[in-house]
């Protein structure tokens, strides 16, 4: 299976690619995080993009899956993807705190999911909107 970045026409860039710049993170830590994300994507590819816990998991109410990678002690990076024909499309990435008990924090995460859902719908309309991983 081919892994691709979803390209957003309105933003004029790939949201995952943009996130993976990991601004403000030291170079060594950045390489370590990216190596881990890359290996997890490889694992998902080996499993034909199927959500295979504990590395990737399905999300309730959404048609895409998530790959979690630890950034800091209390922060996790979520990369959201879905399978489209023979492609694994990396839709969006964001970070979340381990403890998101407040209504505000939960709302922020829901916003990320809704945004990813809109990316998902846009990609389905125009499946040529991607860049190679």
């Amino acid at each position, binding site marked *: 299976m081919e892994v691709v970045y979803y390209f957003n026409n309105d933003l004029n860039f790939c949201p995952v690619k943009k996130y993976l*710049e990991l601004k403000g993170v030291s170079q060594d830590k950045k390489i370590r995080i990216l190596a881990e994300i890359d290996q997890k994507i490889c694992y998902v590819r080996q499993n034909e993009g199927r959500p295979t816990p504990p590395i990737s998991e399905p999300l309730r109410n959404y048609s895409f899956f998530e790959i979690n990678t630890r950034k800091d002690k209390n922060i996790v990076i979520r990369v959201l993807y879905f399978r489209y024909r023979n492609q694994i499309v990396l839709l969006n990435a964001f970070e979340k705190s381990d403890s998101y008990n407040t209504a505000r924090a939960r709302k922020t995460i829901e916003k990320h999911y809704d945004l990813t859902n809109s990316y998902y719908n846009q990609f389905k309309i125009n499946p040529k909107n991607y860049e190679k991983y």
Partner: protein
Amino acid sequence: MKNINQKKLVADPMAEARQNPKFLSYSQEAANRIKLGVEIYNIRMSQNMSQQELARITKTTQKMISNIESGSVDVRFSTLNKIKEALNFRVENWSRIYNFLAPIEFCWVGDNWAEENNKNLNKITSFVMSNEVLLN
């Protein structure tokens, strides 16, 4: 006039990272952590054990078990030992993590044993030979 349809040039951070000399060793470390995490997860699930339960037995936290299973942390030897004991790790489990051929258990089946198990015999022979090489 500006071309608004032109794609914004965003460098690929993953491609850049792959050029870094440390990337390969970090990738190998991550791959091993993932294999260990998946194996622990699979055994735990086959025993219908929750992360909390495993954490209680191994005297660690549920968060730590979750981190180990997702391949996000380097496990301390003492913690790994406790997990191994709690989940009753077998040679097959280690063989899947470290990519070696586990010894195969076999028994006498009938007259056609030699033919049926010829492949297994070859595997066993190569396993014994590779171990002899290691021992020498």
